[in-house]
């Protein structure tokens, strides 16, 4: 007798969704690593050291990249919350486009 009611294998759609959840869990880890990278850089004065301007650009580019990835994941995962969340108020037509 199986221990739980959850199926062992999933259809393609649910499988994709599960992997999206994994990606959403991993994203902050990668984000943290990318944002920790500057502490390994050499000081601006030292040979091969990066300037504050470069550092600023780097941090903001990583930041924008994380936002973009989060946007993609959020769009993919929104239906997954919809499945389990309470249904919205029934009255009135939907104004939201998404």
């Amino acid at each position, binding site marked *: *007798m199986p221990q739980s009611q959850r199926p062992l294998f999933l259809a393609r759609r649910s499988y994709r969704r599960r992997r999206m*959840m994994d990606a959403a869990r991993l994203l902050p880890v990668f984000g943290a690593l990318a*944002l920790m990278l500057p*502490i390994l850089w050499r000081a*601006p004065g030292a040979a091969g050291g990066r300037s504050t301007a470069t550092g600023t650009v780097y*941090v903001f580019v990583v*930041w924008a990249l*994380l936002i973009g990835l989060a946007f993609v*994941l959020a769009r993919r995962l929104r239906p997954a919350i919809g499945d389990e969340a309470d249904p919205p108020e029934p*009255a009135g037509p939907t104004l939201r486009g998404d």
Partner: protein
Amino acid sequence: MVPFNLLVAACLAYVCLLFVVAFWADGAARRGQVRWLRSPLVYTLSLSIYCTAWTFYGAVGYAARSGLEFATIYLGPTLVLIGWWWLLRKLVRIGRMQRVTSIADLISSRFGKSNLLGVIVTAICVVAATPYIALQLQSVTLSFNVFAGPLPTGWGLPDRGATVLWVAGGLALFTILFGTRNLDANERHEGIVTAIALEAVVKLVALVAVGVFTVWGVAGGVADILDRIADSPIADWQMAPGRWTGLMFLAGAAVLTLPRMFQVMVVENSDERHLATASWAFPLYLLLMSLFVVPIAVVGLAVLPAGSNPDLFVLTLPLAQQQGALAMLAFLGGFSSATSMVIVEAIALATMVSNHVVLPLWLRLRRRQQQEAGQGMVVTGDLRGLVLLSRRLSIAGVLALGYAYYSVSGGSGALAAIGLISFVGVAQILPAMLGGLFWRGATRAGAAAGLVAGFAVWLYALFLPSFGSGNLMPEALMQAGPWGIAWLRPQALFGLEGLDPLLHAAFWSLALNAGLFCAVSLVTFPAPMERLQGLAFVNVFEQAGPARGWTRGGAEAEDLLAMAQGVIGAEEAQDFFQAQAAAQGKAGFLPDTTPDFFAALERRLAGSVGAATAHAMIAQFAAGAAVSVQDLMAVASEAQQILEYSTQLEAKSEELARTARALSEANDKLRALSVQKDAFLSQISHELRTPMTSIRAFSEILMEGGLEPPDLARYAGIIHDEAIRLTRLLDDLLDLSVLENGRVRLSVRPANLHDLIDRALRAAGSTRADRSFTIHRDAAAEHMPVFTDADRLVQVFINVISNARKYCDAARPELTIRTRRRDSRIEVDFIDNGSGIPAAAQALIFEKFARLTDQTRAGGAGLGLAICREIMENLGGAITYLPGQGGAAFRVSLPARPVVPPSRGAEADAGAAPA
């Protein structure tokens, strides 16, 4: 230069606008037009109260002093938000399920609805928020002073203290007016949230406008800015890895544990899906807020006279460039940042204070009074007035504390430094929060120990010293430690010297906090309520509803209604009771006081007064009904029993299915046999009748006489032949009957298999002698001794071979005979090259009168194979059909050694179905 009067007028106009917006939103919410108000956009914008005046003014100052480090304050929250699936989703779900009213309520509810924890967290939040609120007051005051200029204009320069007082008073008024209209924190403050969203837009627009003006108005575009950054003092900034990592962590913790962030993120959340939008939109907001910070700082350092306060560059830079309108916008942005933060923070703190301090005290007081008065039942009066009053006073108190901090600390120090003190303070809640969310073993004692230790270290090592050396902490204590104990120096605990004071305090407080939390949790045993709540929190996604905290009801529903009316209002309480009664299938206002009803009522009350207070109130009525360890065990063993029972059921049903399958097979067989029996009877009648008819006909002819001798002889011959055929048929039947009954006498003796097959081939040659068969044999293999009844075996062989001769439909018929010895058995296969026997018929060919083709063609009675099977069984062997040989194939197998034939009688007694 903007006249000061105009500035004040603008401020008042702006506040009026907020009033109007908040009023309108409250009204719209009351009319049910909440869809727009509860959109993901408004939710995301409301989260932006994370960006306070500290961000608006302080970030630029921070960048001017410490370069890129300011970004950590926004990168931490970014990481937390993009990791929403992991943590925030769970937090929001728990907030909705448990009707959490504040972060103190969350912690208290998780650890068995303990009011002690509620009080501790409330204390931490209030103390930690004080410098933060002071910071807002300070920044608004500073910005006023910028405009006030060195000379009094208009109705005179109000002195600094008076400005702060006015600002604090005004904010308190606004907060009280809008924050304490609804009692149920879960009913959400639509008005406030919408106003906050508007303020979020204002501050973003203002900061971006100043940034755009700086980059393209003062400097010469992006490339020029990058050059200027390289030339500015900021370029010399050296990253401190400890601060970079530590501040990012602290900011990430703060976005979870700051009371106002918890308020907008969890309490005011109306739909979990909004989190998905906020997960990228809020980081985007933070990015936009931070984008122009470094440019403004760099240009400000270059353009403005040396010694200017970098915290005010956002204001002074446009002013210096004679951009009065832009400066005004920037001022309103800063004002927005400060007001929105103070409003929500004050609401959140007031909810905590009233739910975790005032109400429990009042309940205790009432109980004592009633005990003294000798009243048995606890009757609670109208609590709403009390709750609202306590919240209003709390809001005023919180702002007063902020004002006091501002006055005592002298309003000095950089904005960023003050804000970070708060961050470390609220971060103390993080271990208990994360532990409570993910670890069922976290206990109340552990959480209390960790919180108290962390709070104490934070007070000692960071908060008190922040007032300045010699203010609250004597100089000697700072330098030499209490009583001269060097390793207790506030900024060098345990001899850890030379560290940044902030990191030092954060490290020791959080390390002690988390360490004690884990250690004490490991060695203590949680109360039943804690375990119930722990399960409900940690497994929030797995269970359908919150666990029950009550084992029996029994109180009078009327008393409960009276109490509930006092807490959530008469109309609401009556609606709730009516709905609950309807759910139980009862009419009227008084449902049965079942444990489920108790749990529902408690959750409803918790939405107003917090879990701990609600639990205590219900406990008055259901004394002794709270869940116990035995109940938990009973529930667990009940679940275990159900599991076992269902396992048994499953096994039984499998067994039943097996039996049913066997029965159904037996039934099919029986039905087939019944058909066969009918067929047998009709066949036997038919077989007997055919020769009988010809015998009768010819004997009648003979009786008439007058026949020639040759005809006579011929007719007599026919009668004789038919009689012989009848006899043979009857012999066969008799034979079969004898074989089936196991009464056959066998004469077992050794014989050569090759000779037996020769005999059989010769004998079967007469069957359809016109057909010439090619016979394939392996003579060498056939020479093996068999111990059996040779005549009977040959009878089987003859039958099989003549069947092949009769039925093989190939144009050039062939018969292959293979013999081999396998283990203790001898197998003889007869394989022809015809079309074989269809699979459906294979099971039936060994039955009596089973004939597959037309009878006339076959010319036999259909008993042959049935007899063969019986013979082989009597010989201890078997005859089986061998499918898949490219034609009809039969395998005769018999034991190599003589065996005692099985007792057929015994087998028949056992009732075994014939195979």
